[in-house]
């Protein structure tokens, strides 16, 4: 299957700051990919490069389109929700729906209205009078009611309460995702999304540190919990990526370890994506 997103040596510099540093990736279709990194890692810059909102150096293809020169064509098949409220504040909800109906051939107004009926968003109020949660819900309603192949979510739950964060991701899964569609989610709160991801990309200081499927992570990384008094001996033998103490025991995070050789040394578990992320970031975050 052709890659949904193909990036070759994508770089973006702001003054002396390298926001993206030779990023190369190939993301296939039908995946839910988490773009994970600390604040300032380059996540938003990468997503804005993918949607043609930014100039960059290197070669990029998203859904077969070059984002800068073919942004209009790309946006016909791509939905985007940003980390900040970007809906025009002077528009009323019903005006936004009418505008979307006119401008986007793949927009289904009835679907958006049906989604909005489940919320308390008024149709006759200006967007600027809505709460942050309502604005995100409205943007989500409009985006999910648009038939696209790719959905890009840039920290969509930023500033929202826990109830709405859960609701947002379940809406995305129930109302949008199927095996013909792909989702790229940027976040620095990995615990929130790791259960829905099929792949993760770890990014820091503009560089991709890791790109792997969740299954691959489970095979590649191992968490070994051992008695504290054995830690010194096993540390030199196993060379863990990271370690921490819990209830008098030591937890090692190992990369590429053979489970057979670990048997009998301690409790073997699959680490969470968050643990792997923290281990790979090391002291850099």
């Amino acid at each position: 299957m052709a890659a949904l997103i193909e990036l070759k040596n994508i770089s973006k510099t702001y003054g002396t700051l390298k926001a993206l540093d030779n990023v190369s990736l190939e993301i296939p279709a039908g995946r839910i990919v988490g773009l994970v990194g600390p604040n300032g890692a380059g996540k938003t810059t990468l997503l804005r490069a993918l949607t043609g909102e930014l100039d960059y150096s290197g070669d990029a293809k998203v859904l077969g389109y070059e984002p800068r020169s073919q942004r209009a064509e790309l946006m016909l098949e791509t939905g985007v929700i940003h980390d900040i409220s970007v809906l025009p504040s002077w528009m009323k909800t019903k005006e936004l729906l009418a505008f979307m109906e006119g401008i986007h051939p793949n927009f289904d107004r009835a679907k958006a209205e049906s989604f909005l009926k489940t919320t308390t968003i008024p149709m006759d109020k200006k967007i600027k009078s809505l709460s942050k949660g309502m604005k995100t819900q409205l943007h989500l309603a409009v985006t999910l009611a648009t038939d696209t192949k790719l959905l890009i979510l840039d920290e969509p739950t930023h500033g929202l309460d826990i109830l709405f964060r859960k609701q947002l991701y379940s809406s995305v899964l129930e109302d949008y995702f199927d095996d013909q569609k792909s989702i790229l989610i940027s976040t620095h709160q990995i615990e929130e999304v790791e259960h829905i991801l099929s792949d993760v990309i770890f990014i820091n200081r503009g560089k991709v540190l890791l790109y792997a499927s969740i299954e691959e992570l489970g095979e590649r990384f191992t968490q070994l919990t051992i008695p504290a008094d054995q830690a010194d001996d096993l540390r030199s033998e196993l060379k863990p990526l990271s370690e921490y103490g819990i209830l008098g025991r030591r937890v090692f995070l190992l990369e590429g370890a053979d489970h057979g050789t670990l048997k009998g040394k301690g409790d073997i578990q699959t680490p969470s994506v968050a643990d792997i992320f923290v281990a790979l970031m090391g002291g850099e975050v």
Partner: protein
Amino acid sequence: MKPIMILLKREWLEWNRVIIGTVLVVTFLNLLMLLSVSRGSTWFHETLEREGHINMENVQIDEENVGDVDIRKNGSEIEVYIDGSTSDKSLSDIMNQAAKPVVIGLRIGMQLTFGFVLFLSLFYFSDAIYKERADSSTLFFRSLPVSDHHILTSKVLAGLIGVMGLTIFLSIEYLIFMKVAIMLMGEPVNALASAVLSKISYVSLMWDWFAYLIFAVIRMGPLALFLMLVGTYVKGRPLLVGIGGPILLAISYSIIFRSAALFRSIGSFLWGFNQKLIEQWDMSTSGMANGPIVYGNFWGYIFNLETLFALMVSGLLYTALWMTYKKNIPVG
């Protein structure tokens, strides 16, 4: 074409309050004018009834002569005496004299209308892109299946169509109010002014005005695009930067080179809008002698080098605008 139409509608949605507000303010000012005309007319007729005559000193009689005018009521007739003797001029002479203030009033009204709309348009053009950057909605509009050219062209067109549409609407309103005001003035003004106004073909006048507005919007293209360009990168106050920048440049130029050339250029650019109207709608020489000389030839200005130059500068500024807009420079 469809995206442009939808985006034009979106501009209307955003700016309709300003446009409707402008129409309401101008209508209010016109009503104030009518009120004062009505009160003046009442005073005129009451004074005439009570005292039998009204004497006005040092009235501009014609191009060269200033004299006293005495208006007297003689039964149901109103007679006008100039410098003590009754007017021996023929009706066409009187109409010729009356035509000048009427047509100049008409021209000044149209000039003021256009000047006012031009002033308002500065706010639109400087805010057109800046506002979207300020509230981040530029990210939303650029996440839609429309190109940067669609977005920019719709904004330029909306502004220029808005200037033309609003000016024509307010001009028609002004003409209507002017006619009502003349009716309210009563005799003898009503008869004289109506005689002049009845000779004007309003369809031809509007067509003439339309041609002028096409010329004017082409000429203001560079100014509009310059203000939009400023709005794509400033951190705040785009109008102040857009207008203050060139003025500061002109001041610096005049201090360094001891020359007011830049000031003169800015002045002649702005005065150029007015100059064409004065040139074409000048009543000073022939008045009504050969029919109403209120029509001009503005089409001639559209197809000339000056307009071509304005279009070329607009093209360059549009390219710069597009290049800057693509960079998506945040306000914060």
